[in-house]
């Protein structure tokens, strides 16, 4: 693992970037509020004991006939013959499977919601190649009916990213699918770091080259990245000097503020990149300017550089089998995910799709089976790490969720059968120990958009 950042840009831990950068020098000591802070509150819950299920713990372990106990919103225990606390809800797990909730590291729910019309296509600020200043959360429409469908597929956390039309697309946000939320702040995962979305390859070059502006080529992409990071370094340096009482802070610049946040480690970099050679170039840039890449997204050719990705500690967020829709996706193979896993690198199954997010378990199942047909020996519980622990790691929330380790948030799915299958469905979904979805339950649609539509009224 390489060093994380140059010493001159390391800022005081725990002090939010916005607070450092935004306030007049005289107010620096008192201004600590972060704008758009999470107002998420877990739904009410009772202690819940799931008895006698097959359990994947999210760390790669599988336990037959095991119990899972949730208390006070947290995982309390996983084991055999657990005692039910007083007043606990008891769920019969016989024949059922219990897993950590699925975490999608790449979603555009809310920013490209249903219905999809011009006015709701809010995910790509394609007005200049660097829009690091925009935040995806400011485009999220909490009423997107896609959130309910995602929960029905076992999703308990999802990372919403801007699109990939720009080299620097803006900040991504980690959300809880709070189906009753009216504001996006109610959905924000408490304490989760934001991300910066960057994009390699064809998309930005097509968008801006098509306008006869830079970047028009792969080399143009890299030149614009590097100049932008050089500018961000200068900005971060001035911030740090001001912190140390050496002169005034720079005028606030929202674009550079985001990038300085990556340089100091507060903001995690999620980089859309398909090709192995372009990922290698991206890694060079990260070394040159001293920042970490949390994950490459789409990463269709990660299998070609799996060892490099392991050495760099960079996750790959991948599809099971998408390929061929453009030339940079031409070398997609069904064994990408298992080959990355086999190399000891961090493999993630992501959706990038309002349809795919509803059944990421099936995508993991495909990848596992194809890897095993190619000679690997991946268990279904190991495959589950691609759906919860590894995305939690890429998003910087692995201490909070992603496994059934006692003390973690009780984000739990009860499946009707083996979830690495076409046929299993999520029967019950718990978030922070609260039952947020029950298959077949008769209730009003949580999205205001769907309430009172002819078909939802008729369904009742």
């Amino acid at each position, binding site marked *: 693992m390489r060093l994380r950042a140059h010493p001159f840009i390391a800022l005081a831990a725990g002090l939010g970037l916005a607070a450092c950068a935004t306030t007049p020098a005289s107010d620096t000591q008192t201004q600590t509020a972060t704008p758009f802070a999470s107002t998420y509150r877990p739904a009410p819950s009772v202690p819940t004991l799931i008895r006698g299920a097959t359990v994947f713990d999210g760390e790669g372990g599988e336990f037959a006939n095991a119990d899972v106990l949730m208390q006070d919103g947290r995982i309390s225990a996983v084991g055999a013959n657990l005692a039910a606390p007083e007043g606990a809800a008891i769920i019969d797990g016989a024949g059922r499977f219990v897993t950590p909730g699925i975490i999608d590291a790449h979603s555009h729910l809310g920013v490209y919601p249903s*219905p999809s019309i011009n006015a709701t296509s809010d995910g790509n600020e394609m007005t200049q190649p660097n829009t690091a200043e925009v935040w995806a959360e400011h485009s999220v429409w909490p009423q997107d009916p896609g959130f309910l*469908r995602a929960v029905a597929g076992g999703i308990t956390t999802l990372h919403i990213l801007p699109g990939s039309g720009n080299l620097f697309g803006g900040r991504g946000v980690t959300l809880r699918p709070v189906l009753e939320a009216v504001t996006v702040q109610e959905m924000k995962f408490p304490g989760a770091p934001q991300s910066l979305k960057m994009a390699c390859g064809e998309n930005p070059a097509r968008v801006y080259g098509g306008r006869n502006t830079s970047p028009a080529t792969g080399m143009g992409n890299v030149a614009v990245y590097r100049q932008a990071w050089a500018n961000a370094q200068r900005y971060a340096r001035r911030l740090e000097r001001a912190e140390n009482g050496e002169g005034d802070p720079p005028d606030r610049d929202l674009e550079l503020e985001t990038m300085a946040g990556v340089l100091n480690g507060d903001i995690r970099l999620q980089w859309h990149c398909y090709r192995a050679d372009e990922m290698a170039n991206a890694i060079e840039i990260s070394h040159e300017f001293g920042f970490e890449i949390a994950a490459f997204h789409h990463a269709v050719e990660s299998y070609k550089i799996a060892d490099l990705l392991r050495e760099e500690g960079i996750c790959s967020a991948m599809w099971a089998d*998408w390929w061929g829709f453009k*030339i940079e996706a031409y070398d997609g193979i069904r064994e990408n995910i298992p080959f990355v896993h086999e190399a000891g690198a961090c493999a993630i199954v992501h959706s990038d799709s309002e349809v795919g997010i509803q059944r990421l378990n099936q995508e993991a199942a*495909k990848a596992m089976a194809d890897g095993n047909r*190619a000679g690997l020996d991946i268990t279904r519980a190991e495959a589950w790490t691609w759906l919860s622990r590894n995305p939690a790691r890429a998003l910087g929330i692995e201490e909070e969720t992603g496994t059934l380790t006692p003390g973690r948030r009780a984000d739990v799915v009860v499946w009707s059968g083996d979830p690495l299958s076409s046929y299993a*469905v999520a029967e019950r979904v718990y978030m922070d120990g609260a039952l947020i979805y029950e298959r077949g339950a008769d209730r009003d649609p949580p999205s205001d958009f769907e309430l009172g539509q002819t078909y939802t009224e008729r369904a009742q």
Partner: protein
Amino acid sequence: MRMLSALVMAFAIATPALAETVLIRDGRVVTNGAAGIIENGDVLIVDGRISAVGANIAAPRGARVVEARGAFVTPGAFAAMSELGLSEISGSGAPNDADMDSDLVAAAADSSAAFNPTVTAVAVTRLEGVTRAAIAPSSTSSMFGGRGALVSLGGEPDSVFRSNAFMIVELGETGANRVGGSRAAVWPAFEAALRDAREYPSRYRSGQGGAVLNEIDAQALQPFARGQGLFLVHAESAADIRRIIRYQRANPSLRFAIHGAAEAWQVADELAAARIPVIIDPLSNLPDRFERLSARLDNAALLHAAGVTIAIAPAPGTVDAHQARLALQLAGNAVANGLPWNAAFAAISRTPAEIFGVGGQLGRLERNYLADVVIWDGDPLQVTSAPTAVFIDGVEQPLVSRQTRLRDRYNPTRNR
């Protein structure tokens, strides 16, 4: 009948020279026919066709015997709608015969002239158990998408086994956009086009010309307008589907199938009565368009229960050139949402063949059917399963593609 003889001739041409006699023994044989699923069944392939299906079939002299050992043995899957073979790469400015945005040719566009059996997606799709496909490009300018073709995935030069197989028509939201933005214009435009086609060539020779169609489109549309071909209509909403049912009732000689049909569950009984088949996407459950606000996961199950003939394929707008193989996953998800397994498997094999008029030759494991046969390592509708052998016209196909070659080059176990 002219079309029938053309069909017979096409099949005659396709009869493979290399077909061997093969006995597949002791499989879980999904016949898709009256015999249902035969446990411990055998399938005998002779000269590219199914010669016998049943228990304890004796191996003819010289036959190669393939032991299925209880594995699923099924008809090949039939992609009910695809752009397979119409492009190597869809985007990136690469040549893409699936995209058509000129109004020079619309109804006359001929998929069979664009199909390329050597694109890598054909082999990629074939080794997932798909042996046939209905293909059509997507038009972005006219309400007519052109003439679809039926193709084999054998990769041979003569892979198109039926051209002029169906005519794509947009009669929903997309159709409205093609005729100026309003559904108010869709049906008058469609009816005028049919009149132009029926009156071809006289009104063109007289110099009157077409009301809405140019001469080449009128010529291509004529057999369909006379009830000699299938209109494959893109429509999603219950209201649009009702209009199609009404129109078909008033014009009983015309033949329709509906692709999309996300809200078809609301008009299931009417569709069953009208005997209009639908091609639906079992994953379509989002109100992503106003024409499919009521899309739901059990659409397939509800339609099947009402007696509607259903096939399964990606929804209009998501049909592509590379992922026709996902039809099996789509069908598995229909099962997860209430569709019986047999109906789901039929919806990606027998039913497409029937909708496109080749149900007497393809889609079943019965005597004299073309020998498109797949042996699986598990339940074919399970995402974890894959074929262990694929036969097309009785010829065993190599389970090799550009993707498996890349896999083998980068396989981490290759030097162990």
